[in-house]
């Protein structure tokens, strides 16, 4: 039996189906989690933000029609809003997150822990490089480059025209190149940083 589409699940969610929303969580939580990590550089915070994203999404279910085939761009758009003021967002969901109350025997990251520490160090370097970009440009960078959304999907997520997405991404790329040039990195490191920042091909081609 084929899995229900996002559209089918969203229709049920809008009608109040917790089970349908749970299925959407299972389908998209990983992407949201990793996006939140790449934007914050903090795995633990990313986990809490993921919960907050879906709590917010549930609240908006009745007035959010599905655009396109996948809800992921919209979930990432909700994440963007939360990321604009992380402290306030986490505070807003503080009580709910406190009720999570992970038991003592909660599975931890085990052998994964060292790798996650490395991840955080890597992201810290990249985020340092891009943080001088305007926030809106960082958002486009995250959605198009790291999450692989197309310009149209990123436009839906952000609620802006496609042309705006293109121009912001172009500006972000230029800015990162300027930063690398001015940082004194050698060519090999510059290339590596560029590869790191633009690791995934966006839906559009390289902008100049």
């Amino acid at each position, binding site marked *: 039996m084929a899995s229900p589409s996002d559209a089918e699940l969203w229709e049920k969610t809008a009608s109040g189906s917790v089970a349908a929303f749970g299925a959407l969580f299972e389908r998209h939580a990983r992407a949201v989690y990793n996006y939140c990590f790449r934007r914050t550089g903090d795995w633990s915070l990313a*986990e809490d933000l993921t919960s907050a994203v879906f709590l917010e999404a549930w609240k908006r279910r009745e007035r959010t029609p599905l655009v396109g085939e996948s809800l992921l761009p919209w979930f990432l758009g909700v994440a963007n809003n939360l990321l604009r*003021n992380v402290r306030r967002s986490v505070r807003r969901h503080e009580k709910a997150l406190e009720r999570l109350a992970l038991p003592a025997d909660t599975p931890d990251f085990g052998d994964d822990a060292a790798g996650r520490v490395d991840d955080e160090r890597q992201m810290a370097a*990249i985020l340092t490089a891009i943080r001088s970009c305007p926030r809106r440009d960082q958002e486009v960078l995250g959605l198009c480059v790291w999450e692989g959304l197309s310009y149209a999907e990123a436009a839906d997520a952000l609620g802006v025209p496609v042309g705006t997405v293109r121009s912001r991404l172009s500006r972000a790329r230029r800015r990162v190149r300027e930063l690398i040039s001015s940082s004194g990195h050698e060519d090999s490191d510059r290339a590596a940083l560029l590869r790191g920042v633009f690791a995934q091909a966006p839906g559009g081609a390289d902008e100049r």
Partner: protein
Amino acid sequence: MRDELRVPTERDLPPGRMTLRKDHLMREISRTEGGSHRRRISLAVLAPSAVLLLGATAVAANYLISPPPPETVAASVACYQEADLSASAAYKGSTGESPLDVCAKLWSSGQVDVSTTSVPPLVACPLGAEDPGTVGVFPNSDPTICERLGLARLPDGYEDAATSFAGLREALNERIGRTCVSLDESQGIVRDELDSRGFTDWQVATSSEQSDQAHACVVLGFDLQQRSVLLISSPAPGGGQENGATEPSPSPGG
């Protein structure tokens, strides 16, 4: 150094943590929206003057005219996916309709288990201390399932109690939930409805967070265990919603 500058590859949460996060999400949703009312008041500050959990989803509440014990009141119905108290459940506020009928409808529309619209045999049990005021409906043909789950059986007359409470909730929804009503006026309305419907031993309480001139409207909450209706001030319409995340629609332009 070069490797450190690459974007890390994606990771999963360990399976246990993903499950915990999902279960937490389901509980929070049910707590604030689905009518589930765990041990205390369940509040959902929606728009100003919204009654707590309008329409078919309502906060589980306490009691009624001639009470059976609170834990037997079907003020809220939880339609479980499995005959297991730790399983996922879809919640609905009671309108006096049989909990079995309520859940049969949810099963048939795929809202209990998205993978099926078949309605299994169902058994209803009061959740008692597990979730006061809520009746759990479990897919099972064994009539002793309540005892096997450590739950009591439903007493006679619980349907009347549920119907009475649904009437109270609807009346308060009409008089307070649909418009912006001041705290003073709300107190009078709630007391009037409680007394006229036989809830004479119920109290009207106000939240400690209040009395801000800007917060002129009231949201209602029901506390089963305390047998009280709680009045909470909320921002008046157009007063500006406290905003963490908003719709993903930032201002245009770059």
